[in-house]
C-alpha cells in the first residue's frame, strides 16, 4: 500500500510518500502507525505517541481502529488549518 505524509510530518519522516508491505498482523491504522515507527528515527518522531496527527484511508478520514483491509492509500497529517 501507499503511505503519504503531509505538512510537518512529511519533513520529519523525510519523504512525501512511500510504498510499504506491512506484515499480515498489521490490521488497523493504529497497527500501521506502530509498525511504521520502526522504519526510521524520522518515522518514530513523526508518528510518536502523543503527537497530534490524524489519518485517512483511501481519501477518507479514518480513526486509528479503522481496518486496513483492501486499503490502497493511507495518509497521516497534522490537524487541518485551511480556510
Amino acid at each position, binding site marked *: 500500500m501507499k503511505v503519504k505524509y503531509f505538512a510537518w510530518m512529511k519533513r520529519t519522516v523525510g519523504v512525501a510518500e512511500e510504498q510499504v508491505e506491512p506484515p499480515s498482523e498489521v490490521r488497523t491504522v493504529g497497527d500501521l502507525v506502530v509498525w511504521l515507527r520502526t522504519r526510521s528515527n524520522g518515522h518514530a518522531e513523526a508518528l510518536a505517541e502523543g503527537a497530534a496527527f490524524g489519518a485517512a484511508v483511501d481519501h477518507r478520514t479514518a480513526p486509528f481502529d479503522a481496518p486496513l483491509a483492501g486499503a490502497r492509500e493511507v495518509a497521516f497529517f497534522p490537524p487541518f488549518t*485551511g*480556510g
Partner: protein
Amino acid sequence: MAVRVQEADFDVGAEIEALTSGNKRIGGVALFVGLVRDKHIREGLHRERIDALTLEHYPGMTEKALEEIEAEACRRWPLEATLIVHRYGRLAAGDRIVLVIVGSSHREAAFEACEFLVDWLKTKAPFWKLEETPAGEKWVDAHEGDDEAAARWEKKAS
C-alpha cells in the same frame, strides 16, 4: 453546486454572476472571502509578522471532503446555489485564500449555510498553512476556536 481547488486567484464578482445567472429563484446571496493576514493575532504578545504562506493540500481527498461539506449544507438548508473555491500554493499577505458563496430563496438560509461551510471546511478539509515570518518558517497550529465553531453545528444536527 461546485467545488474548486486551484492555485490561481478568483474574481469574486464574476463568480457571483456565474453562480446566480439564470436562476430567478435566488432571493439572496451570502459570501465569505478569506484573506492572508499579515500578523498572528492569536498568541497574545507574540505578534509575528507574516510575509507570505504556503498552503499545502491533499489532492484527491480535498475535493472529496469539500464536496461532502457542501452536500451536508444542501441537506440542512434549502439552497439554490453553492460554490467553494480554495486556493493552494504560495500566497502573500493580503491575497485571497478561500471563497464561499451561497444562494437561496431566503437570507436566513444563505447566511447560516455560508457560516456553516466556512466553519466546517476549516476543520474537515485537508489544508495546512506554512507561514513565512522574519523568524523563519512555521507550520500553523490548529486553533481551538475553530474546533468549537465547527462543533456548534454538530450540536444543531442532533
